[in-house]
């Protein structure tokens, strides 16, 4: 077979992937002057101003909290799924996947209905004589939105690794005298690490870069790094600054992929993400 079939793709790729990335780099590393533009690091210097560092810190913190919660909720769920508590595993797996096929915005929007001051949760709480819960437009609501949207990303890779673990290995550990706690910490957990690592990657990255969840559930009060980029391009019109934040974000993502793939060994999560 000939390689000429690559031709349309190579042109497409050059035009719509490579050139745009080069343009982002160009805008990030230059500032406009009267004579055109000159190379400069000014855009990056701006990013290190305290307000923007605070935005970066908040984004990292919220993404980290959401990832930890997803891991704590998701690992046991994946274990139950991989175990023998259910007979029809395919159906259970499907139940995790179905909500993901619902439009992302609608899933986020659904929480507005629940969390509103006169929303479903508050009406229920008041009817039970409990104090109301006002977390809409707070950081907690943003974290909740992230956990809700990204939990399946954590569960599915862990499940797929756990379900491939040879049952014989677990039985062997038991036969050799390990109690179930030691079987878990010494056998199951180490073997499932590749799944955990890709789960963490798949939750942390979209959580770090989202601007929709923070806008809808945070009410626009909690600027995250994604919101900052959006504002620079669609409101302020400062492409240079917006591009430099994007470059910082790409570097962060590449760094975490490098760290993760180092832990992961040969098994690659790339195809999944």
């Amino acid at each position, binding site marked *: 077979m000939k390689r000429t079939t690559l031709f349309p793709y190579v042109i497409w790729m050059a035009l719509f992937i490579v050139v745009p990335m080069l343009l982002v780099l160009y805008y990030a590393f230059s500032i406009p002057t009267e004579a055109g533009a000159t190379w400069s690091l000014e855009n990056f210097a701006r990013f290190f101003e305290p307000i923007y560092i605070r935005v970066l810190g908040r984004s990292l913190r919220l993404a980290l909290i959401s990832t930890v919660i997803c891991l704590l909720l998701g690992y046991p769920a994946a274990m139950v799924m991989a175990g023998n508590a259910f007979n029809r595993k395919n159906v259970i797996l499907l139940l995790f996947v179905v909500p993901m096929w*619902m439009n992302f915005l609608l899933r986020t929007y659904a929480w507005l209905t629940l969390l509103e001051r006169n929303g479903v949760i508050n009406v229920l709480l008041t009817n039970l004589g409990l104090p109301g819960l006002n977390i809409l437009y707070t950081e907690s609501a943003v974290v909740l939105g992230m956990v809700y949207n990204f939990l399946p990303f954590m569960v599915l890779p862990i499940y797929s690794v756990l379900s491939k673990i040879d049952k014989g290995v677990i039985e062997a550990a038991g036969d050799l005298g390990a109690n179930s706690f030691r079987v878990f910490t010494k056998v199951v957990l180490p073997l499932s690490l590749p799944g955990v690592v890709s789960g963490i990657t798949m939750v942390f990255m979209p959580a770090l870069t989202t601007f929709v969840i923070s806008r809808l559930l945070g009410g626009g009060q909690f600027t995250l790094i994604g919101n900052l980029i959006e504002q620079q391009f669609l409101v302020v019109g400062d492409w240079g600054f917006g591009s430099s934040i994007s470059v910082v974000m790409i570097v962060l993502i590449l760094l975490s992929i490098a760290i993760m793939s180092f832990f992961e060994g040969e098994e690659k999560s790339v195809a999944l993400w």
Partner: protein
Amino acid sequence: MVRFLKRSYLYLVFAFLYMPIAVLMVYSFNDSRSRGVWGGFTLRWYVELFQDRTIMSSLYSTLLIGVISAIVATIIGTLAAIGIHNSRGIQKKIIMNITYLPVLNPEIVTAISLMILFVFARVRLGYLTLLLAHITFNIPYVILSVLPKLRQLNKHLYEAALDLGSTPAQALWKVIIPEIMPGIVTGMLLAFTLSIDDFVISFFTTGSGVSTLSITIYSMARRGINPKINALSTIMFTFVLLLLIVVNVRQAREEKKERNGKHGKKQVSSFGAKFGGA
């Protein structure tokens, strides 16, 4: 007892996942704008939904762009996959790495880079730019769906076709393409769903007047709660659910037919690929 606890835990997780969707659907039949109150059953919001010009025209744009971008991406992506499969060494490495770029990059970065390109090249933002952007982010998923099928292919098939006197084009069209068809179809369906589901990239590459369903939902949701969105959600969720059931029943039937045990993984991986979308 342990089994019971395990099951209950999973049921709780499912409750967490499904409760918001269920509430959304129930309230689409609520005859009262206020959320906490149940004002009786109504289909009013569904009627208003279908009379809403903005929503209907964005539904049309969404489907149009979804279909065209999926078809174009499938053609370019399938040809690209065949080419990648046959290239070696450094060339293959470079192309694969660039292919992964839009998959790994945060969506918002892909979005702004395309927006810069279009504005820079003075292309008016609208249908055309939306379409170009959607094709661009769809192609890698088609390639990643087709490549595994090519790897399973017996490499002597192509040579046999040539020996039997077919031209290279005939061999490709009559031998290779039919063999990798399942991968192509998966890729196209994936591309279509990703296109329909996309918000971030559309949001940055569209111009005034052209809006996809996701963009319309976003601008409505930003202004607060709107029962028409609930009605829309109910319809979309039901549709997706039916689609998934049909696909799964078909898949299960095929697996029963083939029964060589190699298919179990396929389902998870094609679902998995969708998760780039969020």
